[in-house]
């Protein structure tokens, strides 16, 4: 297929036949991710949506190198991933800023580890703190920040390493609805300025369609790719697009696909109970 050829041409991240099974304490195992294939192109924003517990976070942790797959492989820029590294920055759902470091100290953390001179680290930190709109809070400790500000700092911290790909695990999941919208706008603008390759996991369909170039819908556990939907909304995007007919069209498409899976989860639970 020509489409396939094109995909491999610009492929940044490839997940091939990825399976992750966890050993149960009482023996046996649970398959969280089942022979999953997925590709992310250079400078592409890809969202993974799926019902809760479908293994999408597990998949992201495998890409980050934090969880070992049972089989299959993750290839970034042609090199197989074998452990965590600075080339894959990650933003978590929980607040993971280091509380003993200021915003600046947090954002500098990665550059300092890679041994850049201190002045350069500070300059890098300043750039990304500005980018996420936290100027003036460089010397604040995380406990002095709101949830949205903490996540902005976490994004800056991940970007300061200039990773090949940014992995985001429901980064706005813990925020209130208003803040979440603001953060989505911020992320869109950050993406316009950096064109960073992003793999973003969420269960929020609207969020996925708003942000992504492509949306992968995952099946209920064990997680597989159920559908791939190309979101051909024009960029640069703003939240204004939320009201457009095209947006609603894509949203409906993703929604339908995921609804079937959610119903399956529900049915399975009722059977079990």
């Amino acid at each position, binding site marked *: 297929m020509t489409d396939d050829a094109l995909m491999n041409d610009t492929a940044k991240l490839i997940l091939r036949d990825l399976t992750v099974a966890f050993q149960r304490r009482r023996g046996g195992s649970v398959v969280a991710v089942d022979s999953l294939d997925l590709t992310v192109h250079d400078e592409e924003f890809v969202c993974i949506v799926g019902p809760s517990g479908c293994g999408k976070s597990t998949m992201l942790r495998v890409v980050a190198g934090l969880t070992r797959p049972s089989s299959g492989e993750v290839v970034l820029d042609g090199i197989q991933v074998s452990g965590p590294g600075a080339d894959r920055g990650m933003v978590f759902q929980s607040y993971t800023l*280091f*509380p003993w470091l200021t915003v600046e100290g947090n954002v500098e953390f990665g550059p300092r580890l890679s041994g850049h001179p201190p002045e350069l680290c500070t300059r890098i930190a300043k750039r990304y703190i500005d980018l996420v709109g936290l100027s003036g809070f460089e010397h604040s400790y*995380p406990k002095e920040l709101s949830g949205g500000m903490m996540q902005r700092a976490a994004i800056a911290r991940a970007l300061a390493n200039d990773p090949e790909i940014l992995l985001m695990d429901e980064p706005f999941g813990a925020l209130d609805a208003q803040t979440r919208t603001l953060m989505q706008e911020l992320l869109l603008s950050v993406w316009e300025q950096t064109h960073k390759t992003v793999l973003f996991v969420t269960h929020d369909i609207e969020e996925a369609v708003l942000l992504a170039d492509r949306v992968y819908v995952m099946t209920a556990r064990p997680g597989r790719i159920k559908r791939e939907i190309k979101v051909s909304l024009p960029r640069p995007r703003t939240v204004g697009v939320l009201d457009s007919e095209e947006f609603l069209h894509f949203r409906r498409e993703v929604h339908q696909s995921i609804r079937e899976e959610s119903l399956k989860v529900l049915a399975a639970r009722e059977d079990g109970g």
Partner: protein
Amino acid sequence: MPDRNLQANTRRPAPRAQTRPRSRIVSALDDALRPHEPVSRRTYLSGVILSTAVIAFVWILLSYGGIVPPLFLPSPSDVVRAAVALFREGSLLIHARASLSVIVTGWALAVVAAVPLGILMGTLKFVEALVEPVVDFVRYLPVSAMIPLLILYIGIGTAEKVAVIFIGTFFQLVLLVADVSANVSKDLLDSAYTLGAKRGTVFSRVLVPATLPGVMDNLRITMGWAWTYLIVAELVASDRGLGYLILDSMRGLYTDRIFVGLFVIGLLGLGFDIIFKQLHRILLPWSPKI
């Protein structure tokens, strides 16, 4: 925070409008006794003064009122007089210094050994497997039960008392610190890995700082326990120290001196507590606990 205050302010007047007008004391008490709600500085201070005043009043009444004979309860002035006398002889300072040096030495040795071990135990399952059974067993042995053995091994000098403090605090502290480090969020460690940190860096730059507030709290708590063990050790076999002062005063029925000993212990403990709280504030300004 502001939201909560706002809520509290808008919520409170409503029920008050329905009830009969109450006396100021009743409504002040009502305000002071709302669960988990902050009280004004004035209310807080009046509580502190109230409890101190009640104790002082009961003491004054029982002693000066002649209700309890001075052999059992010396009057405040007797205690002050005894304190001045002991201070003038220089023995109060000698005893206090002896106790302090033992307690600080024993406790510091325990801290130096227990904090790293506790952090490793809470972080590495294998170290937990190595350490936990032993620690769990030993920590149920009362230190006082080990004093005879320690006297047999080390004698009755300072070393024996330092050993008592060490044993008394070390095993407890290992478990407390292990708990603190086990509760460090795994996401914090994972973030460090994804920022390019290796295992050693994660230990030194993430785990250790993350445990500091909890460790600091436990240092304060175990210092309190150390005082208990010290006095026990000094009561059993000693020739100086505040515990010895108390025991020696009892032999001569100097109840006022016993009270001096107790007050000094209490004041030193309070002093340490304040120092630890201040250190926490100064050294860990980022700590969520302040």
